[in-house]
């Protein structure tokens, strides 16, 4: 066990490479069935069902978008109300100061604007980006993950992680190659 503890601090985990999207998806299901939780898969394009196969249950981006949209809606309308009715009311063509119909188009636009910002910023922030360095980049073949290779990593701080057993387990999933990732 002492040997195992020393290992978790010395490296990030193990990464297996697979031949195809199908092999990666199958492996992801098996890794989750085997009880591993600190895992991630890497692919050059989105693969439907892969995140769910690894046990991802988070759906936060839509909630941020809703919050952003509501902020834009209230903020946009309030801005117009405050400037046109409270701060500097001017009679323009005899229209009421609170011309709510006229305030709809800018309100619509601010709603969309803040919702869109919320979508992009929450996606980037939840993904932990920008992140200039990550241990997976240490694998020699990982530059192919943005081209035509498929990887699955199990982190060393996973409770079920054991370097030798996990390596054997990954190799048993028809991995093309299993490499150890340094920090």
């Amino acid at each position: 066990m002492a040997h195992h503890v020393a290992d978790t601090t010395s490296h990030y985990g193990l990464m297996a490479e697979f031949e195809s999207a199908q092999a990666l998806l199958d492996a992801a299901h098996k890794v989750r069935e085997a009880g591993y939780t600190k895992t991630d898969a890497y692919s050059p394009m989105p693969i439907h069902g892969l995140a769910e196969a690894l046990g991802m249950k988070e759906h936060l981006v839509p909630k941020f978008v809703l919050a952003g949209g509501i902020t834009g809606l209230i903020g946009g309308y309030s801005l117009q109300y405050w400037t046109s009715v409270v701060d500097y009311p001017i009679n323009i063509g005899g229209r009421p100061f609170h011309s709510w119909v006229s305030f709809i188009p800018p309100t619509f636009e601010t709603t969309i604007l803040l919702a869109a910002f919320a979508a992009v910023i929450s996606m980037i922030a939840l993904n932990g980006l920008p992140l200039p360095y990550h241990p997976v980049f240490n694998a020699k073949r990982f530059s192919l993950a943005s081209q035509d290779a498929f990887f699955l990593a199990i982190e060393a701080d996973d409770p079920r992680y054991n370097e030798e057993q996990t390596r054997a387990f990954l190799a048993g999933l028809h991995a093309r190659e299993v490499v150890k990732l340094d920090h």
Partner: protein
Amino acid sequence: MDGTSNPQDPLGTVPVLAPGHSYRSMTDKLVGIVFSKNTPTAWFVFMAVGFTLLTVLTVSLCYLVLKGVGIWGNNVPVGWAFDIINFVWWIGIGHAGTLISAILLLFKQDWRTSINRFAEAMTLFAVACAAIFPIFHTGRPWLAAYWLFPYPNVMGLWPNFKSPLIWDVFAVSTYATVSALFWYVGLIPDLATFRDKAEKPWQKRIYGILAMGWRGSARHWFRYETAYLILAGLSTPLVLSVHTVVSFDFAVSNLPGWHATIFPPYFVAGAIYAGFAMVLTLAIPLRAIYKLHDFITMRHLENMAKVTLVTGLIVCYGYACEVFFGWYSGNQYERFMLQNRIISGPYAWSYWMLLLCNFLVPQLLWVKKYRRNIAILFTVSMFVNVGMWLERFVIIVTSLHRDFLPGSWDMYYPTRWDFMTFFGTIGLFLTLMFLFVRVLPMISIFEMRTLLPEASPKHKSEGGAH
């Protein structure tokens, strides 16, 4: 996304991606366009033309700032002319990019994949060209900030939110921002590919910074796809709102020829029409220069021709409605406007030219043989580009130059500076477009990968027939 060989599809014989491609072959081809040492001669030619015209734009804008808007042909009563014509023309062109990237994504049209990236770039550059006109027509663009945007200034002034012009500021600036976000988010995974394929360290560093450390993690892809889909959902009503608001600039006034309820839908259709024509105008030469026939197949061109035809017919329906509304209103000013615009006015030629370009010529696209003929397709798209410019000329100039009081009637003649500014923005557009093609992937590489059948695996317990 595997609609490549759908038996229900009458166009199934022409796939959206030529057979025989793999992840690697597509990546190498599309990355190779940028990293190649053999930049096509055509690129230098287009860039030279674009940059020359861009210089013309710089000169004409400098002179404008020096002398004021008096160098343009605008007068009373035609207080708005080339500035707003060109603004609406450019904004309209931008609409196809968002339509292709957002609306066709929601409708799961996989043929959008090879054209969405440069159509989005086209949107951004067209909006940049459009923005020049309203900003510089103020004559003192450095003061435009407090005229346009509500920020607390020492004069305590705010924009007038009861005016369609300020709605337009909000619509166009939101549109530009959201289009830029959508475009950049779409680029992130491809920038990571560029980072990993780059050989020179400075290239690796620049693309690496732009890719923000993207590593293709499954969890990241999951949030990425959610955000991308939501952006598409947000962009769809946004793009419809933008030209609607642009049409309010006219429709909310009480000028005959502008004051018509058909304007919002008719303007939106016109924008998509103009935009698809411009996408065809760009796609056909780019496809030839960079030999992209495998990715931009006849099917893309034919589908775009069909969208052009349909939106063109909607636009012509708008023309018919305008005429009918004017006549049926029984209002003498409305009826005079029509007579002046179509029959007896000094600008009647422009109306008939418009019908030639926007109504008559595009009818060729009903014929399959013509839709599949590159030369005819390109010619029709050029006619539509001109026609949509004439449409705005007709709406703006013929309505303004003969308003209610004959005492205020006058003719409008553009000056050389009007033309120089207009052609100058074409230079800006070409320069930006060809710089983009030179440094960024003009086709979305990661989305092209998803077109391969092996990119859509099935989990075995779901019983998928793989």
